């Protein structure tokens, strides 16, 4: 038994290493001096490392990182606030025309991001939301909300009806059933939706570049463009920024995964 588990760990590590090789390469490039970047015989290790990329990233990009974090968390909150009740309505309360709504949500996800961004520009100019962090939070949530509703609906539909009926018998109204029974049981979904919403908001570029160009607080995806000049690009600074940006989020991911893996056993969703 123990050897079997070790063997799997080794294999797992191998797969992960393979998957993360491009990320390793990114780190490699971030430490490579400009003159060696395009050598026809690339170095596997940065034999002559330069830290100027990290200097630039750490001294200039930290505010942008903070902004990205704020936008990510805001987006998570907004997405959950909109998607969870909607999922509840569709799955448990049997909303009339739920099928249609589901389908509309699917259609909503088919609209290319560029189309959305251009449409939003007009709306935002009129609402005065251009170049604001809140504007970006709302825009980024449009990426996650349809997916969130889909996920919540699927999940909540699997909640045993007895659970809901038990609450009802106890005299709880729909709202209380939602907050006291359904939401806690759907913790897995909430965490998954939060994860997706955060990651999508974190890596968004199109909305940021169209809607928050001149703002005081720009997210990291725009901050990186500082290193892309008219005809020149500072690759080690860009890669260094990406590394610096990914590290805290990666740690967050590892911690969150452990929490999700702990699972919700009592009253867990059963098929």
């Amino acid at each position: 038994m123990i050897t079997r588990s070790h063997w799997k760990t080794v294999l797992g590590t191998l797969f992960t290493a393979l998957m993360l090789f491009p990320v390793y390469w990114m780190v490699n490039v971030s430490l490579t001096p400009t003159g060696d970047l395009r050598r026809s015989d690339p170095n596997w290790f940065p034999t002559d490392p330069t830290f100027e990329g990290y200097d630039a990233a750490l001294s200039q990009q930290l505010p942008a990182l903070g902004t990205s974090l704020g936008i990510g968390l805001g987006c998570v909150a907004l997405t959950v606030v909109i998607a969870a009740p909607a999922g509840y309505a569709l799955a448990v309360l049997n909303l009339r025309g739920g099928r249609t709504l589901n389908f509309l949500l699917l259609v909503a996800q088919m609209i290319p991001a560029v189309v959305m961004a251009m449409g939003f520009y007009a709306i935002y100019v009129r609402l005065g939301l251009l170049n604001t962090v809140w504007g970006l939070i709302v825009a980024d949530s449009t990426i996650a909300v349809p997916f969130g509703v889909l996920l919540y609906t699927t999940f909540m539909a699997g909640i045993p009806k007895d659970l809901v009926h038990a609450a009802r018998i106890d005299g709880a109204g729909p709202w209380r059933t939602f907050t006291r029974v359904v939401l806690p049981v759907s913790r897995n979904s909430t965490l998954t939706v939060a994860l997706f919403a955060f990651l999508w908001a974190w890596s968004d570029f199109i909305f940021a570049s169209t809607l928050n160009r001149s703002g005081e607080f720009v997210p990291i995806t725009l901050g990186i463009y500082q290193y892309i000049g008219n005809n020149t690009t500072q690759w080690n600074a860009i890669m260094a920024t990406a590394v610096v940006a990914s590290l805290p989020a990666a740690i967050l991911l590892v911690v969150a995964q452990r929490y999700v893996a702990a699972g919700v056993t009592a009253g867990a969703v059963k098929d």
Partner: protein
Amino acid sequence: MRHRKPLARPAAAGLTAAALALAAACSSDGGSGDAETYTWWDPYPQHTDDSAWAERVDACGEEAGVTIDRTASDTTDLTNQALLAAQEGTSPDIILLDNPAVSTLADTGMLTTVDELGLDVTGVDENLLAAGVVDDAAYGIPVGANTLAIYYNAEILEAAGVDPASITDWDTLTAALAQVTGNGDKGMTFAAIGTEEGSFQFLPWFWGAGADLRDLDSPEAVAALELWTGWLESGYAPNSVITNSQNTTWEEFLTGEFGFALNGTWQVNSAAEADFATGVIQIPAREGGIAPAPTGGEFLIAPVQADAERYDITRQIVECMTTPEGFVETATTFAYYVPPTAEGQEALLEAEPELEPWVTAVREAKGRTSDNLGTDYPKISEALWTAVQHALSGSATPAEALQQAQADAEAALG
């Protein structure tokens, strides 16, 4: 049993609405209508708020008695941002725009002419001003111009026994490449990527053969493309040129493995700091002489504003940026923009005499949208870089590719 349900259901909806309202109240969008603030957009995000460039811009604003609110964007994005803003009526007061895009914006009616602005452009070199001229009206003034030339690795050339001064036309250039590769090094690298940068790098050869942008399939044009495909086939240029941007080309040159690189004024400082000695030669025309290279560099343009009173201050800001001293400062900030006026060029040469080959190149250069090509140029350019891509990747012969390009361009221009 009855339970009072808290009004929490509308709360979520209310939360969203409240958020939006809060955001609207706190929005920090600097209005382009405020008499004390003038908005300025430029494509230099690498020059942050504490850079010398930003300080200069601020200083010009102060001189005119206003504060300047500056936003820097990626250059490809800038045109679209400008269009979106014009559509909504929120155009900034001044934009620094890449010169081939000026005629596109001018055509929409969103720009003021220099006459409307009251700006005097008589001192500006014709060939440089022409890029922003549409139907005999000038729509802006160049902030400086840069262009292309051939950098060489002095050590590699010496080792191969090549004298840079002997490269005077295409034959001698190809012979030099053969010598360099024969000696074990790599020949030349350039950018043939499927974007405007690719056309930019191809044009000196195109024009140097005597071809015209209205006739993409002329024998001269085919000869130019055959020059490039010939180099690739003989191994004088690497296959990766097809995806190379100008920046990548330069990074390849810096490895010290290449004898030549086609690149621009903006790398002068980097060349000086390279691990090996470098030099510059002009791009030769097919039968000798200097090939006209396309001009890069931005124009200072002023979008139309609802309040025409603003033009006076706008003009003052522009004039402040375009004095001869101003031009030299711009030149050095952007390593290097050659000033577009004779006065400015002389001032620059006084300060930096080693820029002489570049000043010469700029004097021989040509705007891409000149010859009244204006808004036709982008369509022709797209067809041209596509043809280059097809020919270099081997999916069509140069003649076929250019024939297709001419057909596409004619169809696109209607």
